[in-house]
């Protein structure tokens, strides 16, 4: 027993020291798959289809990173994570990128030692009620039963909002969006509070969307984005600039279909992005066609948006804040220079 424990501990320590110092990029290249953490199921953002392939807005970001790093958008190992597990899974190296509609907050960035790669969705917490209740404003909600997903920042925002306005409420905590929907549709709660994207998706899936109403108040800022661990700056750069490449692609009119033929474009920034001019790619340690691969795999930011959550999908979200800055939105990429 004694010798065994000693030997086992020595061996494990040895093994551990082997794997500790390697860089995430090298590890990913060596294993040939990108380890990506996603939601266990959220309409439009991550869900498995009939054949078991993960789909959605968040999933496409993973695919873009895999295409940029490995040249193959399908070389992704998806790990569905609950709200509770996501940060430990990332910290422990179980996943290398977390693309799971996570709000960028101060404490998550600093205390939990994460690096946010950017913002791919500007959201805010809102309220949805049944139109039959006659409520027109969130300030009329005193005494209401409020359905809320646990394990998220929405819970704290809600408590703060009602406390600040000196109103009572009856929180009905729920694990998943599907259950929240079931309760809200059956009027087991008067109000459903969540990110407004989630509210819109939920409203769209109702038999009669007009019987539901999203209230005008937005009680929090919820900038959602992918994140990586502290401490590997090269990997964080890759995560950040893949997102920026997708945004710039929309700005420059590069799409899934035309990106491969745009390498000889007259626009120098497009040429730098697609690797036909300059050597930006070598600065982050990727092939020169990294951005072209990512865009060819999933399309530009706008295409991803429209494919999974845009107005023509069952979810039907307007671009709103998530339009390009040139269209009056907040989606903005630093220049490729």
């Amino acid at each position: 027993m004694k010798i065994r424990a000693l030997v086992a501990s020595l061996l494990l320590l040895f093994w551990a020291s082997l794997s500790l110092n390697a860089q995430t990029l090298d590890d990913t290249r060596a294993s040939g798959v990108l380890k990506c953490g996603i939601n266990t199921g959220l309409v439009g953002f991550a869900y498995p289809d009939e054949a078991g392939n993960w789909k959605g807005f968040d999933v496409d970001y993973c695919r873009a990173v895999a295409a940029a790093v490995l040249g193959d958008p399908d070389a992704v190992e998806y790990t569905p994570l609950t709200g509770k597990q996501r940060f430990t899974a990332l910290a422990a190296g179980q996943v290398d990128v977390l693309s799971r509609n996570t709000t960028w907050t101060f404490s998550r960035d600093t205390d939990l030692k994460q690096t946010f790669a950017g913002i791919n969705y500007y959201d805010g917490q809102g309220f949805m009620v049944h139109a039959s209740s006659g409520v027109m404003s969130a300030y009329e909600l005193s005494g209401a039963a409020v359905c809320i997903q646990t394990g998220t920042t929405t819970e704290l925002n809600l408590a703060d909002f009602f406390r600040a306005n000196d109103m009572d409420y009856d929180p009905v905590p729920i694990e998943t969006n599907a259950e929240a929907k079931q309760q809200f549709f059956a009027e087991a709660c008067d109000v459903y509070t969540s990110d407004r994207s989630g509210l819109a998706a939920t409203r769209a899936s109702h038999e009669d969307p007009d019987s539901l109403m999203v209230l005008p108040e937005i009680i929090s800022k919820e900038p959602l984005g992918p994140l990586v661990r502290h401490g590997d700056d090269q990997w964080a750069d890759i995560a950040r600039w893949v997102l920026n490449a997708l945004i710039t692609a929309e700005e420059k009119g590069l799409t899934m279909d035309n990106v491969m033929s745009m390498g000889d474009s007259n626009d120098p920034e497009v040429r730098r992005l697609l690797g036909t001019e300059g050597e930006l790619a070598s600065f982050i340690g990727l092939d020169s066609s990294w951005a072209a691969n990512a865009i060819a795999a999933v399309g530009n930011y706008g295409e991803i948006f429209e494919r999974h959550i845009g107005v023509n999908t069952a979810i039907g979200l307007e671009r709103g804040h998530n339009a390009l800055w040139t269209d009056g939105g907040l989606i903005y990429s630093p220049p490729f220079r």
Partner: protein
Amino acid sequence: MGQSGFVRKTMVPAAAPPMLEGTVIGWLRANLFNSWLNSALSVVFVTAVAYLLWQFIPWAFKSSWTANSLVECRQQIKAGFGEDVSGACWAVIRERYLQLIYGFYPADLYWRPNLTFVLMLIALAPVLFPTVSRKLLLFSCMYPFLGYWLLWGGSIWGVALVVAELALAFYLLSPLTARFGLLITIVGVVLATVLWWLFAVAPLQSLFHGILPLGLRAVPSNQFGGFTLSTIIGVTGIVASLPLGILWALGRRSDMLIVRSISVGFIELIRGVPLITLLFVASTLLNIFLPPGTSFDIILRVVIVVTLFSSGYVAEVIRGGLAALPVGQYEASDALGLDYWKSMRLVVLPQALKISIPGIVSSFIGLFKDTTLVSIIGLLDPLGLSNAIRADSAWNGIVWELYVFIAVMFFAFCFAMSRYSMHLERRLETGH
């Protein structure tokens, strides 16, 4: 005294049988309406069952099997059965039943889990049915490795190398013990095994694989889900917990104070906390307990924790078996001069384990049902998959159909197991 007033001299003619004997009404009267209370109970219960069926059957049968989304389902049912009928949308089961059973396992490889399952039944046969040839036990010992290789795939050489080393160690155990004594042999064998696994298997595997590439397509763990995952966790958990459980049970009955206290402490700790807290440990804390940077598969972590969990329960079952054995058996084996391990191995354990089989089967049923808890830590067992399926916008809002399907599957499996366990109990009872 001795004077009786009346003595019958002639035979009384035989009375006609009760009119209703043997008829349905007679049976009803004897079984359902033999008293006021029973009559009332019968009426109440029959009405309740009729009401439930009245609610359930139209829903189950006025249904749609062909639609491709919930909306389409509702339209089909409205078109087929009338405007205000709400029926079941079994179409979701038609579309997703393979996913619920196999998870995301590649569709062209379904034969592998199927084969593993069939082989499992064969491997279990010599344990569960006394009439099957004992020679099959060798196959049962090989089965865990074979099953692992079939499910996860990859090169056969890794598994073959591990098996070869273990077989060699087993073969050499008794000559080495005779030469060096038990303790040194065991330590040496364990050390050799660990070293072999950590340092020799991987390079030798790639070497052999280079020479003769034999293997199956590798399937990574994140493709596992559905009932396949439940079965893997349940079966591995109970099988791996058996040896551990035997050790804990022996430790708890040991007369060495420290060994006994450790065993009692472990068993009580495991049985005192809910499985879900242990699963939280597996999903969030195990990384913290292991050396920095070690990170392994979540399924493996869950299997380890489930094994520890079930070993606590199996230990108590086996302890019951040990306690049920007559003291004479222990005394007789002592009288024969057998040492502790020999008397356990040859006399006590074979009998105690035989008595414990029904108990072990019921802990297996319990464990199999408890595998649904892994959905709480994000694994996609049937219940977890039902949530993921609901996240597909085509099926968003579907509730009962998935629950009913999962419940029926679990019921069929567990019910069959419990019937078998009862059959075993009866068989063992007549054995005394």
